[in-house]
């Protein structure tokens, strides 16, 4: 077997190229109806024209700002509430049932409610992304603090550390790992907010554009937008990974170094 084929990345790219080529050929010879599944070249053309005509930027900006704002606010809110609940039993009593409920339902069903409360502009999209992210992060922090390794707690207490020291040198670092583990999932959660919000009601944004594409039965535009969102989420995944590796360098570093 060719040694290039033993490389996972090479095999994956090759599989994608093969799939796309087969799709292209089947669409061109008419086996697949281009009305439902346009050829990849057609989808690419539509996406490029969106960028060349410049109509896409306004929508991209709306979705990106909403997703990023939702991610940042959701992270902050989730971390704050998680710590509050883990440290103050009264807060936990109040918050835990609400969070469990919010966690149990598909949170995107709140989209219409936020549109009624906050209007069709960006704030309702941010609110939805915040709720999607905050609930996830809340549980990461809350469970992270509750499950802190008792050995470390005993260790620091016998060194003379009190509650504040414990929080700083044990709880916060343990929770960092939990939050970072959820960060990539959180990135994936931040995008549905503005997108689904856009389906419900919006003057602009990728969700609005998707809704428009669907109502005009424009499969090429629909697929193009889906791939576009995939691409952006992948870029954000990569950023999250970089942040994770840097903050958890004590775990990643030295994995390639020989331990003597």
């Amino acid at each position, binding site marked *: 077997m060719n040694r290039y084929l033993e490389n996972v990345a090479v095999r994956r790219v090759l599989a994608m190229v093969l799939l796309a080529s087969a799709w292209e050929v089947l669409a061109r010879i008419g086996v697949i109806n281009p009305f439902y599944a346009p050829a990849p070249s057609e989808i690419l053309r539509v996406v490029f024209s969106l960028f060349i005509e410049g109509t896409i930027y306004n929508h991209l900006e709306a979705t990106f700002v909403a997703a990023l704002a939702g991610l940042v606010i959701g992270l902050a809110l989730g971390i704050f509430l998680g710590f509050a609940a883990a440290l103050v039993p009264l807060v936990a009593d109040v918050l835990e049932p609400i969070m469990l409920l919010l966690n149990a339902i598909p949170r995107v069903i709140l989209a219409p409610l936020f549109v009624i409360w906050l209007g069709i502009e960006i704030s309702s999209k941010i609110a939805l992304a915040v709720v999607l992210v905050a609930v996830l992060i809340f549980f990461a922090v809350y469970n992270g603090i509750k499950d802190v390794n008792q050995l470390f707690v005993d*260790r*620091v207490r*016998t*060194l*003379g550390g009190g509650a504040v020291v414990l929080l700083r040198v044990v709880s916060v670092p343990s929770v960092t790992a939990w939050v970072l583990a959820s960060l990539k999932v959180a990135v994936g959660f931040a995008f549905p907010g503005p997108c689904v919000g856009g389906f419900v009601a919006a003057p602009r944004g990728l969700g609005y554009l998707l809704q428009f594409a669907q109502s005009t039965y424009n499969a090429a535009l629909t697929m193009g937008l889906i791939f576009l969102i995939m691409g952006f989420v992948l870029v954000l995944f990569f950023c999250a990974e970089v942040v994770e590796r840097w903050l958890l360098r*004590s*775990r990643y*570093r*030295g994995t390639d170094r020989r331990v*003597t």
Partner: protein
Amino acid sequence: MLRVRDLAVGYGAEPVIEGVNLEVAPGKFVSLVGPSGSGKTSILRAVSGLLTPRSGGIELNGSSDSLGFLFQDDALLPWRTARENVALGLRIRKLPTKAAESEADAWLARLGLGGFGERFPHELSGGQRKRVAIAQILALKPKLLLMDEPFASLDAIVRTRITQELLNWVEREHLSVLLVTHDLEEALTVSDTVYLLSQGPRARILASYNVAIPRPRDIFASRKHPNFAPLLERLWNDMSGAMNGAEFEAQR
């Protein structure tokens, strides 16, 4: 240095230990041995303040700052380097960062880990992690060392070496030690006094033994001392008796 009076520890109906009296005189090395489940660790945890006793008294000559607790698990914080782990206790005692870190480096060097300060715990071997844990405790200059089977997880060679080094340090600095172990030979080679606990629950002290072997001690030479073998046999027989007795009681 330490006097434990009528100590009872445990939750629920039956205490783990009950009516335990023991004493660690200044500069003495004292061991607690006994069957597993006899509450040896509970005694150490009560002395260190990690566990609130049911009843009884713990008199410590000096503040809790004079205690050093060496755990069975090295329990180093994985997100801190060796240097930061050793400096942690010093930082908690309000030493400035710079001073704490240079002090930590000095202790690491003293334990043969000079140049390893930047390593994270997972980049060190089991023996090296144990040395970092020892440095972390000794850096606080404790007067009384509490040790809970600290070397159980190490292989025999490393274990012997670290035990000997720690023993030398304890003898030189005249530290008091309360060691929990299930290894009778280890207890006799290092200790001045050995206490034998009965099988729990309601474990109590069955007997104490004075180990008349001169100091400074060498781990291998101590085993060849004429007092060693008879004492080990007595201790072994008493411990077997304690365990059999408990089994008979359980059967009835």
